[in-house]
């Protein structure tokens, strides 16, 4: 019983009262595996500067692994480096590199499984297959890490931060690049993705599936092969994100597929091939966003309904809205369209004639993509003007009845 008291104390005040186990070439403990084995709950393993070749250290007790002057943990291109489970593990200040690759398993630099209340913070991960792979875990934070993958093909690279079956996660202020997907969410609920930068990934900056009741905000998704995909999810709030330079035959600022009751607001879409692509999307509110210099500000497929675009700025986009159907079940109002040529006699700031954001030419391109090469030619200008005068191809009811005369301050 005499022993029990400090143990309880330790459990209660873990960080403050654990002992510190230094690891390093000049220390008593040379290997991280040894230190983990030796450590008790609440201990801090202080990894000194140096290069450590690590073969999958399994951490399943509440310890803190803290790097001093950023030690390098090297996986010899064969092994996973850390596998974490249980509760209360913290990993901080370490550089993970050269973790193994497997075509059968999702090898990651840090694998976390069946864990909770852990923190992965301020680490650098380079030359990894998967960066941080989390499965079946809850209430955790992944924060301030920098992840750089081995940019290879889609098949041979893994995801930066990969979450599967998790809840109550906070993914914050990470920088992920060179992976297949920068951040990957599947079956993740009640989580927050905040202030991350995900760029130059082969496929998606953020790949988001079957995940309800999540929020992502103030992230930047830039130059990813296919932008951001949000699919098969409900009640997702997306605000104040920046989507830019996502170019390619199937690249989107955001791809929305089978998603309902969500919000996209306060975001900036800049120079994407398609800023928002919607398929089977219902009851999405898209407001206070700025769409600038995109190929298409939005492609709304006929399978979408009850979406509401309001108070957005559409500036210098090649096409504002494109659609493949004639049935219009979505609402557009109070947006500023820089292509609007109407007038405002009563000077209330709202144009007196409706704006039709779908041009004849954008309908032509949907039918015949090759005609894109005629963009901005005289004949196309004439066709568009003729269509404006006598609409025949474009859906008459797809219109903004209250187009703003002036750009909205967003």
């Amino acid at each position: 019983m005499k022993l029990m008291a400090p143990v309880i104390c330790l459990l209660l005040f873990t960080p403050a009262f654990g002992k510190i186990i230094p690891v390093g070439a000049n220390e008593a403990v040379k290997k991280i595996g040894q230190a983990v084995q030796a450590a008790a709950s609440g201990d801090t393993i202080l990894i000194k500067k140096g290069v450590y070749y690590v073969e999958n250290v399994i951490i399943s007790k509440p310890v803190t692994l803290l790097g001093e002057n950023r030690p390098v943990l090297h996986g010899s291109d064969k092994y996973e480096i850390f596998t974490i489970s249980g509760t209360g593990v913290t990993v901080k200040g370490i550089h993970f590199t050269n973790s193994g690759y497997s075509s059968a398993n999702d090898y990651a630099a840090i694998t976390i499984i069946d864990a909770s209340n852990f923190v992965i913070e301020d680490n650098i991960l380079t030359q990894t297959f998967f960066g941080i792979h989390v499965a079946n875990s809850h209430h955790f934070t992944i924060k301030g890490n920098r992840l750089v993958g081995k940019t290879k093909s889609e098949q041979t690279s893994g995801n930066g931060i990969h979450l599967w079956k998790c809840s109550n996660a906070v993914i914050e202020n990470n920088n992920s690049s060179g992976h297949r997907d920068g951040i990957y969410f599947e079956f993740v609920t009640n989580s927050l993705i905040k202030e991350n930068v995900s760029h130059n990934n082969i496929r998606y900056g953020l790949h988001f599936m079957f995940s309800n009741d999540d929020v992502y905000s103030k992230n930047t998704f830039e130059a990813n092969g296919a932008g951001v995909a949000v699919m098969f999810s409900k009640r997702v709030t997306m605000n104040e994100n920046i989507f830019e330079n996502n170019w390619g035959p199937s690249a989107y600022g955001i791809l929305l597929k089978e998603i309902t009751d969500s919000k996209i607001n306060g975001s900036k879409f800049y120079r994407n091939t398609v800023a928002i692509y919607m398929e089977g999307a219902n009851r999405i509110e898209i407001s206070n966003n700025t769409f600038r210099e995109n190929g298409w500000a939005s492609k709304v497929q006929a399978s979408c309904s009850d979406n509401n675009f309001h108070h957005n700025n559409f500036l210098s986009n090649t096409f504002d809205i494109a659609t493949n159907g004639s049935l219009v079940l979505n609402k557009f109002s109070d947006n500023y369209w820089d292509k609007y040529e109407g007038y405002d006699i009563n000077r209330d700031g709202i144009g007196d004639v409706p704006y039709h954001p779908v041009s004849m030419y954008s309908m032509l391109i949907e039918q015949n993509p090759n005609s894109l090469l005629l963009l901005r030619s005289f004949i196309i200008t004439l066709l568009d003007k003729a269509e404006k005068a006598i609409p025949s191809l474009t859906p008459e009811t797809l219109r903004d009845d209250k187009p703003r005369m002036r750009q909205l301050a967003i």
Partner: protein
Amino acid sequence: MLYDILRSKVIIAYTLFLFLITFSLFQLEADPGKAMLSVLNIVLIVVPLVSMVFSTIHYFNSYEFIELMLSQPVSRDKVIISEYAGTALSLSAAYLVGVGVPVCLYNFNATGISVILGGCILSIIFCSLAFLASVKSRDKARGIGAALLLWFYFALIYDGLILIILFTFSDYPLEKLTLVLSSLNPVDLARIFIMLNMDVSALMGYTGATYKDFFGSGTGTIYTFAVMLLWIIVPLLLATRSFRRKDL
């Protein structure tokens, strides 16, 4: 060898016209990107038209001069080439000042530079075409008629034909054909060259990427300029050849 004074009056008017239009576009439009769209229309429609008509009228107005020169010990090639060089030079100079200066002031970026370059080359190309049309025509009226027809063809009809082809044969893969067809029209070529900067986002979309990959690459740029160069040289060469045999 070129003493031309009347020309400068018309050229100055043209320069002023371009300058005022371009300048006021940038003034009226808060967003320079949107103003560039209108500038693009000037480049693709007005510049070829004016270059064509001006060159034709100028050629026929210089007929006395040409006649005088040819009674002197001067070769025909030299006469026609100097006439051409003078006209092409003044047209492109007018364009550079009229459109180039405001664009540099308001929108000096890749799009701006491509617009300046594209319009300048179009001025020269349509001057070449106009010389060919003029040398082949017997009088001024026919010359201007031919020039207008050519302009109408390149600015409008040609693209209309492409559109018809695209929709008639939409079941076939037409990427390569479209690519080849568009390089057979200098206006299309200039337009694509400018679009590569202006609408790069849209061009990255599906088939657009094929074009972007081609025209945006080093080879594509060389190809574009080579074809444009051909559009300058070939009509001029034909005009020179025809001029050698022309009766004055």
